[in-house]
């Protein structure tokens, strides 16, 4: 039993790193938001700006995955990744903002393209 637990947890040093480099950096920003966000009105101009920045940062993460793809996604040619996303966008618009239709058609385009390339 203790063997299993030791295997499951691994070494304690790694958990300490997780706490300091993983948990704290994220939790600090959340708690600052909780602290400073108090009393900010839902419709205020500040929030319009803050939400625009949050949306743009997420857009940056999306663009990063597409432009500098991690791991296996880099085996898909650049043009095919962009074409799959562009095709997904068209379907998303045509289907009046169906997330499912957009994601599914983007995936199908990418898989079909890879299959066609062999």
């Amino acid at each position, binding site marked *: 039993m203790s063997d299993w637990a030791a295997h*499951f947890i691994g070494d304690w040093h790694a958990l300490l790193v997780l706490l300091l480099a993983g*948990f704290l950096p994220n939790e600090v920003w959340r708690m600052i938001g909780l602290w400073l966000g108090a009393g900010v009105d839902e419709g205020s101009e500040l929030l319009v700006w803050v939400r625009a920045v949050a949306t743009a*940062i997420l857009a940056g993460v999306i*663009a990063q995955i597409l432009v500098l793809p991690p791991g296996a996604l880099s085996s898909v040619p650049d043009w095919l990744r962009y074409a799959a996303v562009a095709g997904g966008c068209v379907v998303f618009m045509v289907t009046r*903002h169906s997330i499912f239709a957009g994601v599914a058609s983007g995936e199908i385009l990418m898989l079909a393209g890879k299959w066609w390339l062999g």
Partner: protein
Amino acid sequence: MRSVTSTVLTLVLFTTYAGIGALAHDTHFSLGWVLASTLCVWAGPAQIILISTLGSGATALQAAIAVTVSAIRLFPMVVSVLPMMRTPQTKRRQLILATHFVAVTLWVECFRLLPQVPPERRIAYVHGLGSGLLLVCLTATTTGYGLAANLPELFAAAILLLTPLAFLFSTARNCRHLADILALLLGLALYPLVAMFHTGVDILISGASAGTIAYAVHWWREQE
């Protein structure tokens, strides 16, 4: 149709976390470690950055800086979503757990779902939603860790492509103002330009400038 969209987002979340579990396995982290990271970090991009930097031999300090930078985006998310949960009687400590649950999926879902929930029940609703999503992600992390051995390349590429597609469309669907739509489009367009300078904080620079330009356009239109 609403249930389908939640299913898709849950499915995307599941595959994202299965990917994180697989990545952790391949970089020799223990299952307990990666489950603890899902539980307490609770932000997919931050976990991917943490695992890949530590796995590639970066120091804890270097990993911490990269994660801190990526986590700044949680701040505006918290600031914009908390007013939906807060009533005049709400104490700050009642929001701590809900604040911890804030990450991109919950943030998107709150804008979609909370308007239909009575204000005084929203904190409880978010606690339920957050725990549900967390349970899905812990299961997914375990599944991915178990499957890790060898995903065929095509399958792995398809899983990785799910993340940008789903985040793109779910964000687009939740754009309520001109500023949001512009921020999304400008954010996508500016990142590749900023990335050419290899600053290490590319996403922050492109995000802050695209968001601010989008807000400026919104402000200018209001003045007319």
